[in-house]
């Protein structure tokens, strides 16, 4: 997942920030854009706002590129991404205070969706978003990166800057929570 990191970091330090910022930035953009999108989704950014927030992330990266210490480019971009995503979540929470939120489907319709063999993708995605929203931020990030984006525990640990054991603990609790939430919805089907 972090292939080319050393190469990119090296190029970054070879380049003078003032002369080649744009060149280095373009390389970073090409190499990391897709990953930033996945991270943003793991951080709970709605699909409809991914592009806007990604743009915001890269504007910040370009602004801060001169002060980057070159230690861990992936971790640095990940931190910017998660901070931007949580800022956005906070802002949208504040905005939603004053706007009427769209009501989510009731649990009976969710259980109907779960019961059907042909699970409609859109509905399932809505359920997934709703379930992830009920988790704490740290657990959701670890869970989404592992289960949805396909990262390994070691990669998550490197991105988050935490021990692998901590990632595993978070994953364990997050999976248990997710399982219980789905079980609760499935029980709703029977009643």
């Amino acid at each position, binding site marked *: 997942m972090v292939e080319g990191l050393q190469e990119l970091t090296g190029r970054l330090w070879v380049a003078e920030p003032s002369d080649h910022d*744009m060149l280095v930035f373009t390389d970073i*953009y090409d190499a990391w*854009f*897709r990953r930033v*999108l*996945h991270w943003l*989704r793991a951080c709970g950014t709605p699909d409809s706002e*991914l*592009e806007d927030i*990604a*743009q915001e992330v*890269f*504007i910040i990266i*370009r*602004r801060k590129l001169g002060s980057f210490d070159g230690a861990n480019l992936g971790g640095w971009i990940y931190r910017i991404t998660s901070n931007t995503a949580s800022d956005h979540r906070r802002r949208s929470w504040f905005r939603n205070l004053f706007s009427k939120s769209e009501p989510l489907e009731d649990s009976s319709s969710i259980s109907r969706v*779960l019961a059907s063999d042909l*699970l409609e*993708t859109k509905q*399932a*995605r809505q*359920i*997934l978003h709703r*379930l992830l929203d009920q988790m704490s931020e740290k657990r959701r990030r670890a869970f989404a990166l*592992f*289960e*949805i984006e*396909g990262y390994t*525990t070691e990669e998550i640990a490197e991105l988050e800057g935490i021990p692998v054991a901590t990632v*595993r603990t978070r*994953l364990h609790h997050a*999976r248990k929570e*997710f*399982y219980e939430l*789905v*079980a609760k*919805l*499935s029980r709703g089907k029977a009643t």
Partner: protein
Amino acid sequence: MNRLRDQKASQDPIEVNCAKILSSAEPLDPNGIAERRVRASLLLNPSPRSRVAFMMRPVMAAAMVFALISIAAAAIVHERMNRSSQVIPTIANTAPIAAAPIAAPRIAAAPVAAEPAIPQPAAPSEAAQVATRPNKAPHAAKPKGPTAEESKLLMSGLKSLRVDHDPLKAGEQFERYLHRFPRGALFEEALAYGIEASALRKDPNTSALATRYLRKFPSGRFRSVAENAIKRAGN
């Protein structure tokens, strides 16, 4: 560590549901459209937000707070000006009624013109009291409004004075008011009309009444009435 999303063939139906839900997440930007769009936006906006703009945030916030405070202050001043403008016309309306009686012959000569003003004095004085109610001390005792008996007595005195042209009877009624309600809400009015009635019947006590008025209400609304009465008595 196994992934939940790979458990589609599990024996546990809940695990299968988990896998279904987790697999629903679609691949992001498969055609690279979003990547190209964001790149174009970044190229269109080549200058990143400057540090100066970032530093301006607190200044902007302070400016907004200042603007809000200014608006609030302007609103308060406007409200106070409105209140004071309510008081000024009330006094201006009552002043001629009080001033007119001193020119007693003129009122007597044109009773029809004076009559429409009869029911007014009590109401404006009430309004003036409400309008001049102190704002700074909301816990201070509010000035009490006139009781029905007070109003009745004053109105009957006014009727005798202005309609029946009987200053003697009017004077008695105003005198009765002053005795019965020494702290009444219409005391000032009763005293002023008492001066008028007294002046009409050329009572020697007129200047004493006027002096009493000036002592009690040095900047009262009927000050000019009292001063004129003293002047006339001096002549």
